[in-house]
């Protein structure tokens, strides 16, 4: 059995309590939600934290999925399983259920949270690509109040985010567009494995023309939560296989994968393109009859 080094533990009773603890304890404290990234790191003794602040009791405050007319608000403590099982969310943003079906396994999905996934900022993490494609905005709260950071600027590099040492992510807000749909594709070596590559795409189609499109990728570079230049290339165009091929080329160029045991850099680059093609194709199909 792998066992962690000694640490102190406190259960936060409110968001303000958690933020207060972070402010007082400084950089040696970490929040734990689902714990499916942090606990293995602790057991492998890859962290040097001294204090663990458990925010699982904040699910009542931060466990909401609210689908409104032009926006979806997802609390940071929403579990993967809740994202997978929300019928309302699946109707508004099908990409969530598609991604959640292939994120880890039921045991992890029962505990892991969207906030934990985004804040871990693992370059192979799927929900970051989903939120990138959806142009999500992260709500970060500190002692002085809230600030909003778009997904584009949320990741500061592998395992680094815009969330300061005494702040916490509390909510993810996703704009809804008329005629919008979305899709997710992942290639993994085995069910439950991290992605060799995964791609999320979100599109809006009005009167047969693409009015907006974004693609986010995971596992193909240090930060690929959005593919630059892709929206511009697709906007105003009529959907076609040629257009998807063009988009796939942009995505393949935008990624910066490394060769590792999951696959060669060339293969991952190929997948970035192929999965971009597939997700766009399906996302566009999903818009039919919506606008």
């Amino acid at each position, binding site marked *: 059995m792998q066992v962690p080094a*000694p640490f102190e533990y406190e259960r936060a009773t409110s968001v303000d309590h958690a933020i207060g603890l972070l402010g007082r304890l400084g950089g040696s404290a970490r929040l734990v939600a689902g714990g499916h990234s942090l606990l293995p790191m602790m057991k492998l003794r890859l962290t040097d934290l001294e204090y663990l602040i458990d925010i699982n009791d904040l699910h009542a405050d931060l466990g909401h999925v609210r689908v409104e007319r032009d926006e979806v608000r997802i609390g940071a403590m929403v579990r993967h399983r809740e994202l997978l099982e929300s019928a309302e969310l699946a109707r508004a943003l099908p990409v969530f259920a598609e991604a959640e079906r292939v994120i880890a396994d039921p045991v992890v999905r029962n505990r892991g949270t969207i906030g934990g996934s985004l804040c871990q900022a693992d370059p192979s993490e799927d929900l970051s690509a989903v939120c990138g494609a959806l142009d999500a905005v992260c709500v970060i709260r500190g002692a002085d109040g809230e600030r909003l950071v778009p997904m584009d600027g949320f990741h500061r590099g592998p395992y680094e985010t815009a969330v300061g040492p005494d702040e916490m992510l509390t909510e993810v807000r996703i704009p809804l567009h008329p005629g919008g749909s979305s899709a997710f594709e992942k*290639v993994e070596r085995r069910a439950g494995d991290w992605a060799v590559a995964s791609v999320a795409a979100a599109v809006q189609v009005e009167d047969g023309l693409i009015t907006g499109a974004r693609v986010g990728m995971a596992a193909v570079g240090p930060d690929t939560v959005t593919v630059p230049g892709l929206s511009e290339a697709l906007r105003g165009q009529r959907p076609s296989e040629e257009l998807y091929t063009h988009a796939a080329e942009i995505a393949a160029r935008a990624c910066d994968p490394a060769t590792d045991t999951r696959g060669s850099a060339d*293969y991952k680059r190929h997948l970035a393109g192929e999965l971009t093609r597939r997700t766009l194709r399906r996302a566009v199909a999903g818009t039919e009859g919506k606008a």
Partner: protein
Amino acid sequence: MTAVEETPAGTAEPVGHGRMLRKEDPRLVRGRGRFVDDVQLQGMLHLAILRAPMAHARIVSIDTAAAEAHPKVKAVVTGEALAEKGLAWMPTLSNDVQAVLATDKVRFQGQEVAFVVAEDHYSARDALELIDVEYDMLDPVVDARRALEPGSPVVRDDLDGKDDNHVFDWETGDRAATDAVFERADVVVSEDLVYPRVHPAPMETCGAVADFDSVEGRLTLWSTTQAPHAHRTLYAMVAGLPEHKIRVVAPDIGGGFGNKVPIYPGYVCAIVASLVVGRPVKWMEDRSENLVSTGFARDYIMRGEIAATRDGRILGIRTNVLADHGAFNAQAAPSKYPAGFFGVFTGSYDIEAAHAEVTAVYTNKAPGGVAYACSFRITEAVYLVERIVDCLAHELEMDPVALRSKNLIRPEQFPYTTRTGWVYDSGDYEPTLREALRISGYDELRKEQEERRARGELMGIGVSFFTEAVGAGPRKNMDILGLGMADGCELRVHPTGKAVVRLSVQTQGQGHETTFAQIVAEEIGIPPQDIDVLHGDTDNTPFGLGTYGSRSTPVSGAAAALVARKVRDKARIIASGMLEANVTDLEWTKGAFAVKGDPDRSVTIQEIALRAHGAGDLPDGIEGGLEAQVCYNPENLTYPHGAYVCVVDVDPDTAQVSVRRFVAVDDCGTRINPMIIEGQVHGGLADGVGMALMEMIPFDEEGNCLGGSFMDYLLPTALEVPDWETGHTVTPSPHHPIGAKGVGESATVGSPPAVVNAVVDALKPFGVRHADMPLTPSRVWDAMRGRATPSF
């Protein structure tokens, strides 16, 4: 799914062989199993091992002061301290030596450097971080292909005069005769095949609880071992403790697959710790320690060559193998077989000549070499022959089934002596192959494949036909470190007709408590529910070499049948007294003796048991009691065989492989409990899919192990495997008392080539003839692009 026909307990007709729920399952499925980590003793301390963070480095100094100062630490021991007691090195199962704790240098990442004994597991682990080791880095030997280059760093400079990384050369077959058939062959096909390093990865990791009683001078060791008796003898030899003062207990074992055959440094550390501190000590490795440091499997780099006539008659097979044995040659195999049973690489085919040479090298990687359900390297041999035969079919543009069929050993040729000297005991191959083709609908599958190919879809059909050699083995030529590979068995029938059978082999989940009760039940007519099977405790069971290489049923199963017959012979004499009839006038029907021609005059085995222990005289010269013991020395190995068909679909764009169907027809001779056989086959097939598609222990250029967790070392799940379709034929072994052959490893041996053959077949439109395992999407994509050498 296979229906389980449950046989109710206490039915009038004794069951013997047949489907029956496993007797051990109520305990295991209710969480009442007792594993090594469940052992809790008064005053027990906990041991943790400090391991080398790099593959190759000289130890400059070790400072243990801070660890010793930890308030809960009882002892810190280094290699230097062990050396003072002469215990720093131990023999391996292949007559090499292995460091218990490193003294001079570390030779693989994860090697044992020091250990801490503390009051609890957490403190022991914390104290490891307080040990300060200064290393002087050395260049590692990582690529086995470069291990013999002049100027290569020398891994084993501890061995006298050793100035290279050579372990052994071994050859078999007739080189000249083989070269001659290759000279005159119409077609010669060569292929380089790598069977990568994989790991058995049992659910339960390795561990031990050592309890040394200094007053009695007695050591009790609970440990995760597949071979408790062999381990006890080796501890006696190494530690100098008298053997009768050592008790090795293997409680419930959570999977072995060969991983629990070797003696690991951790077991020895636990024993030393208990001797030093005078209290019981538990050592239980964690998952990463298990994956990084314990017995791996395979790591064979093979060049296979096959010679044939234009019309598909195979003339000869030859191969060169480079074997990576890691830092210590700790392979578990019979002494005279340094490459295990790789000599059966001629497979199931009647050919004219064969030759193999194997060169083994040391590298800076974990030691081991035979593990993971491989029947002593037959996995590698079968992969070689079944892959190279497919390559030949590819070159001849022949159907791989037709090619195999043309070359299979014919039934009238058994017992068949192969060109490398193995005597296959029995076999009738063609019906087994036909059954697999029937179940799979092979001809329809080929038609479907044609249609799909026309649409640009990639569907593959892979076939393998294997012959296994299991049940080591005849003591005239098989031993491990001088211990003959025979097994004892004791049977005692209690006065009320219940019985206990004691085995020398050790189950790790295979169902011995059921299978052996059934073997005895069939012979003696006592229902299996009334027969208790004891194993795993050297104080309570007869000597024998343990469970690995599918040897339990071929060797120990034979012992169980014979000991039951011995008891039955005595029962017959007692019955003759009870029935006042001559023994030759008695007839045995399962469970009772009756006077021939007068079935009303009969006595049951239960009545005989009571008589054997009861009042009144027994026939002249017959002692009371109803028990016997035997030690069985097998006359030959048993040779099960099977035909497998795998169907895969490959995504042409992402190169992902999905296994659509898998048909396995096995022939393991007499089938004792078909349900248990099917379970063994199912597990082995999952193993095979795992190895073919995802499992590998890779290393980077510095020799860092990249497979040290289940995030990195992938095992297949229910989502990667299809519903298994199994079938069987029955060709009994002529020399086994009940005609049974081993089956535990058949599927692991036979399935990887079927999967790989299927994937390669799917890639035929790309001109692919071979691609190395594991066939991850990236590797398949590389193969489609003509790239043969993967990065990992």
